[in-house]
């Protein structure tokens, strides 16, 4: 297990390095410093202001090769900052990026955490239900509803939810965010509801397919031949085995709970990391954008390692080594 984790970490490090080099090529070589500065300061900014801005943000250094001081390059600076999590300041408004991340995690989690903890059991139990009633009307109606639910664009759910539940029924605020515990729930309820509705169809369909595949296995026939009833067969035999493929789908998502949902946050005005990413794109804040992409890559690798470790918990056949 330890050996596995070490090996996996080494591979992860190589991947991260690749991501960082790619980011460098994209943000420092493809986009020239002049571009970045002009985007930040505006087309009409005087040359002195631009020069000063370049110095302030470290864009004045040579790109990859500095004969005077090999470590004083944009590449070295980029790698150093990313690897040490010393992210510096935003290109757009000079706010420290670390500060911004700290402020954004809370709002992001307040939406994604309930979405995850409610969504998983909801989708699993609905899938179990339709799989249990396979080849009956319940199953068929369930599948049709799932396909319908997943065919509708998320935007329709967002706008529809805001219009119906926010504007017409006035159950929830249309958008906005307040971390005060007394009102947090009111602000978070609608995005969570919309997120559940938008995700449940595809998940139920996937889990149902997994359950049905497991239901056809030989060991299920053995369980029936022993005299186990349908409910027991589902709960004790099919479910534990079905959890194995379900897990891959689920555990890899966990790290991304921290980065939030880009669509939900930007439409509901939630100041989480998803909103920060969108804002960074809109305001040409390359420094922040680089950090978000880098963190995304780190979280993705973390998710994969987490999934492998989770396998050992649900599948006795899997040993990491």
């Amino acid at each position, binding site marked *: 297990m330890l050996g596995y984790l070490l090996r996996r970490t080494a591979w992860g490090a190589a991947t991260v390095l690749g991501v960082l080099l790619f980011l460098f090529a994209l943000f420092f070589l493809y986009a020239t410093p002049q571009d970045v500065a002009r985007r930040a300061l505006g087309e009409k900014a005087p040359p002195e202001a631009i020069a000063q801005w370049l110095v302030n943000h470290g864009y004045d250094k040579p790109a990859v090769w500095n004969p005077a001081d090999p470590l004083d390059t944009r590449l070295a600076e980029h790698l150093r900052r990313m690897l040490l999590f010393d992210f510096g300041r935003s290109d757009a408004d000079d706010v420290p990026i670390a500060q911004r991340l700290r402020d954004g995690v809370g709002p992001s989690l307040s939406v994604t955490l309930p979405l995850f903890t409610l969504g998983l059991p909801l989708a699993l139990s609905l899938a179990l239900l339709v799989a249990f009633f396979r080849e009956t009307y319940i199953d068929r109606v369930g599948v049709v509803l799932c396909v319908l639910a997943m065919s509708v664009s998320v935007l329709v759910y967002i706008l529809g939810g805001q219009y119906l539940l926010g504007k017409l029924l006035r159950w929830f605020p249309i958008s906005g965010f307040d971390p005060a515990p007394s009102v947090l729930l009111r602000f978070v309820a609608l995005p969570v509801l919309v997120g559940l509705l938008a995700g449940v169809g595809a998940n139920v369909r996937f889990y149902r397919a997994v359950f049905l595949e497991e239901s056809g296995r030989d060991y299920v*026939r053995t369980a029936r031949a*022993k*005299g186990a009833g349908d409910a027991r067969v589902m709960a004790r035999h099919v479910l534990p085995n079905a959890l194995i493929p379900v897990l891959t789908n689920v555990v890899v998502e966990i790290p991304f709970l921290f980065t939030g949902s880009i669509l939900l946050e930007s439409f509901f005005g939630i100041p989480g990391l998803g909103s920060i990413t969108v804002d960074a794109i809109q305001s040409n804040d390359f420094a922040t954008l680089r950090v978000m992409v880098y963190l995304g890559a780190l979280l993705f690798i973390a998710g994969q390692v987490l999934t492998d470790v989770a396998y050992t918990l649900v599948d006795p056949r899997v040993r990491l080594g």
Partner: protein
Amino acid sequence: MSEALLHVEGLLTSFPGARGARLPVVDRVDLAVARGEALALVGESGCGKSMTALSIVGLVPKPGRIDAGSIRMRGRELRGLPVTAMRRVRGAEIAMIFQEPATSLNPVQTAGAQVVEAITLHERVARGEARRRALALFEQVGIPDPPVRFGAYPHQLSGGLKQRVMIAIALAARPQLLIADEPTTALDVTIQAQILELLAGLARETGTAILLITHDLGVVNQLADRVAVMYAGRIVEEGTRAAVLAAPHHPYTHGLLRSMPSLAQPGERLAEIPGVVPAPDAWPPGCRFEGRCAIALAVCRAREPERTRLDGGAAVRCHAVAGESPQ
């Protein structure tokens, strides 16, 4: 055979075919298994043996279904039994072991837990008592070092051990009838012999009747008291093991015997039966074996042969044999 333990009459199991038609895979099958007896149901792949077995325990996979016939266990009709009552029959009265021990055990449960489940599904016993009995079953089916194997997962056991665990599961609720569907086919030859010996020994000890499903006449020779030969959904010959193996009547049984290396005379060339079992949608109106039969008559193509009773409780379904017999 009034004291029969299991009595199957006119069993007809079908699957949907083209344009809403039902294709029978088990066609009006009659079987009887007496208490403590071992009946072998023999035939090539695809002749309906396994479907007969699954029909008996009510586990025909959808969209297949039993269309007609009666299945009586100790005089009680199993067809149309409520789901909960049928559940009490499975495992407790009729237990089953399957061909593939590798996939027939739940991969994420320990061997012990799967045996314990088979006990507690049918009896209210304390956890410690169930464990004690499961360990005794492990011992009984010849699993070495039961306490260790009890906690092992199926992938940690060899094929032979897995099949022994399956047998332990099957015997857990002390059934009167054990249906063994190709129990040794997936095992290598040395293990096959051990498993067959084990089954024969257990059947003797516990008085459990066995319905053995196999395509292997060597297995039949080792275990069966009586033999029923199945071809294309029909029972074509039945009788005692000695009668069927030593003096077969049906040309299909002849063919099966001649293709068996272990039963052939030394130096004799092994014969094969040309062709394959016709699929249910290609069954001819006459005798279903007619297309592969060396001694087919004109009547064989026209009309399906009736069941002809022979001496000693044997019976055969063949025009050629019926023509010779005094009846």
